[in-house]
């Protein structure tokens, strides 16, 4: 791909090209500079150990930010306002994070502090996530930040060490894929339904080796938080990253946030961001087109995010699949889920409803859930947990009285963190339990050993909590649109 503008470039091309420290040479792939490195307690300790063993420093602590989110409890604070960590291993891991940040001069959003939260919620919230940047984290859902027109992707712990020490990564240039969603979404259909439909369409390996750019009217009409939901789950389609070209919505969202540029710097930044959208005539290695008008609320029935369907559809029949391995996979999934081929999921009783995770724990997600819950009660048979993505989201929700709506309905209102999305912190399903979850992974045991997850939007989750069973939000009386 040319760097001199002769050939029309995509958004991805522009961000990639402007971060090349060294082009491929002598058999080595591109060396890419990383603007922002986000760090959390679970995937970083071994990387810091490597740095210590080799006597290395963190090259750019000023481009690094750490938070605590994965193994942190979300239980209410004690009378001193402290969140206690009863699990000794989790406590030790958090202590290691503290010590590493202290020794290497990295800013840390300490458990329970003002700005702490899920790593993919805090970056955008603080205005650190900006268009045109390269952003990495030892976490596959780093793709979330691509909603701003950044190139953001997950890396392993060895690579976390590379970025800590050199602020750079060796990277093969990925392929490009366009996902265009034309038209307008119908009432009750959300960003989460778009991405579940995309993954059902392309399959969980469909994006492997590619960076997806989402485009089209339906994507443009989403707010930033909806775009983050879409980009967040790019990895569930196997993609390296997901991106949306920046526009007024993006710029308005960033403006005034703590780390957003100000004054003249702001004007210069905005001018640069306006140059990022793909050039006229830029092409992609692959293209997928969906019509928003055809989309309905989606739900997963199986044990990976690609096993999703319209909420009104019936569970597919393994015997009708031509491919033997696909049949075996579906058999295994339905067996784990305790579901029958041909079954409708509407009315299927659930035990737990989880609203949270880096996919759907931002203020707009909580507002949507609250709109359904207001004046209604969670079914007696259901435990509903609402877990804000960050302390800031939590405060905002409380300022708007959303916490009261959830509490009055009988839901639990928790502290910020990953919580039942990954079930490392004690928030987990019991074996055999069914959950409707707004998170991103329904893998076996993901939300607790033996637990069975149905992934869906916050609207579907809230409606299902009220009915005690999987419910099409469009069937609820009253306001849902």
């Amino acid at each position, binding site marked *: 791909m040319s760097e001199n503008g002769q050939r029309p470039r995509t958004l991805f091309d522009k961000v990639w090209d402007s971060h090349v420290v060294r082009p491929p040479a002598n058999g080595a792939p591109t060396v890419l500079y990383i603007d922002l490195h986000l760090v959390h307690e679970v995937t970083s300790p071994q990387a810091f150990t490597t740095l210590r063993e080799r006597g290395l420093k963190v090259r750019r602590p000023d481009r690094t930010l750490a938070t605590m989110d994965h193994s942190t409890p979300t239980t209410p604070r004690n009378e001193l306002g402290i969140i206690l960590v009863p699990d000794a291993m989790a406590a030790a891991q958090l202590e290691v994070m503290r010590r590493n940040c202290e020794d290497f001069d990295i800013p840390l959003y300490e458990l329970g502090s003002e700005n702490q939260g899920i790593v993919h919620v805090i970056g955008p919230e603080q205005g650190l996530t900006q268009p045109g940047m390269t952003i990495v984290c*030892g976490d596959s859902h780093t793709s979330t930040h691509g909603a701003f027109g950044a190139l953001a992707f997950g890396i*392993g712990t060895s690579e976390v060490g590379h970025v800590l020490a050199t602020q750079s990564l060796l990277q093969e240039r990925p392929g490009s894929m366009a996902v265009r969603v034309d038209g307008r979404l119908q009432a009750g259909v959300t960003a989460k339904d778009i991405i579940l439909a995309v993954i059902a369409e392309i399959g969980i390996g469909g994006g492997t080796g590619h960076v997806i750019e989402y485009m089209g009217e339906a994507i443009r009409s989403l707010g930033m938080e909806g775009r983050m939901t879409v980009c967040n789950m790019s990895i569930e389609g196997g993609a390296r990253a997901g991106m949306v070209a920046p526009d007024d919505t993006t710029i308005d969202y960033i403006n005034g946030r703590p780390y957003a540029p100000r004054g003249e710097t702001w004007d210069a930044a905005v001018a640069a961001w306006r140059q990022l959208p793909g050039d006229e005539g830029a092409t992609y290695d692959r293209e997928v087109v969906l019509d928003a008008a055809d989309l309905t609320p989606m739900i997963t029935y199986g044990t990976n995010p690609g096993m999703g369907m319209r909420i009104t559809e019936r569970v597919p029949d393994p015997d009708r699949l031509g491919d033997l*391995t696909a049949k075996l996979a579906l058999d295994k999934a339905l067996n784990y889920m305790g579901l029958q081929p041909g079954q409708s999921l509407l009315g299927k009783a659930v035990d737990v409803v989880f609203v949270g995770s880096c996919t759907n724990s931002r203020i707009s997600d909580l507002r949507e859930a609250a709109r359904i819950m207001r004046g209604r009660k969670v079914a007696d048979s259901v435990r509903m947990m609402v877990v804000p993505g960050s302390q800031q989201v939590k405060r905002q929700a409380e300022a708007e009285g959303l916490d009261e709506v959830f509490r009055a309905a009988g839901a639990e209102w928790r502290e910020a963190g990953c919580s039942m999305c990954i079930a490392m912190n004690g928030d987990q399903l019991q074996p055999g339990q069914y959950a409707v979850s707004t998170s991103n992974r329904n893998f076996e045991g993901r939300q607790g050993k033996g637990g069975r997850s149905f992934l869906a939007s916050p609207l579907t989750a809230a409606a299902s909590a009220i009915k005690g069973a999987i419910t099409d939000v469009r069937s609820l009386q009253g306001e849902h649109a």
Partner: protein
Amino acid sequence: MEPVTAFSGQIVAMPINDIDTDQIIPARFLKTTDSAGLGKNLFADWRYEVDGTPRADFVLNQPRHAHATVLVAGDNFGCGSSREHAPWALRGAGFRAVVSTSFADIFRNNALQNGLLPLQVDEETQQQLISLAQEDAGTTVAVDLETQTLTLPDGRDVGFPIDGFARHCLLNGIDQLGFLQSLEDDIFAWEESHPARVNTLASA
């Protein structure tokens, strides 16, 4: 890092597509701050009963496969989370290579950082190896990274693609961090010509 040399090893088959990293090593084992010691929890939820006793019907628990070092899996191995604990657990349990028709991007990178070879083969070879492993647990393959060949029991050589730089590093025991450090001048030059966009140390 130890250089990766040519080796022969017994194969064991897990003909399941889309084996995700939550299955390879469930999240509750990620509270460790170490990379050693994860092998015993490889595939923990498939391998052990709730009370911790090994499930006799799980392939890796069968004594006849106890010495396997090459895992033959279904398509799209290692999808999901970025946890490097997945290759750590596979290495910890004695595996040196995984055979599949495709690998998730982050898993592939992580495997290469840890001397675990992702051997991408065509479907026919994958299926042949699965049948062979199921018929005879003693089935052995030879893996030569230098020539990028997998030699099947019938003597057939199958090539596998591997990123040239990763291959070079693995063969010579060079780690990528050391290489990146040697590019200090380039990195510094890039920084000089691209002023920082954000400063996380500045109080917001």
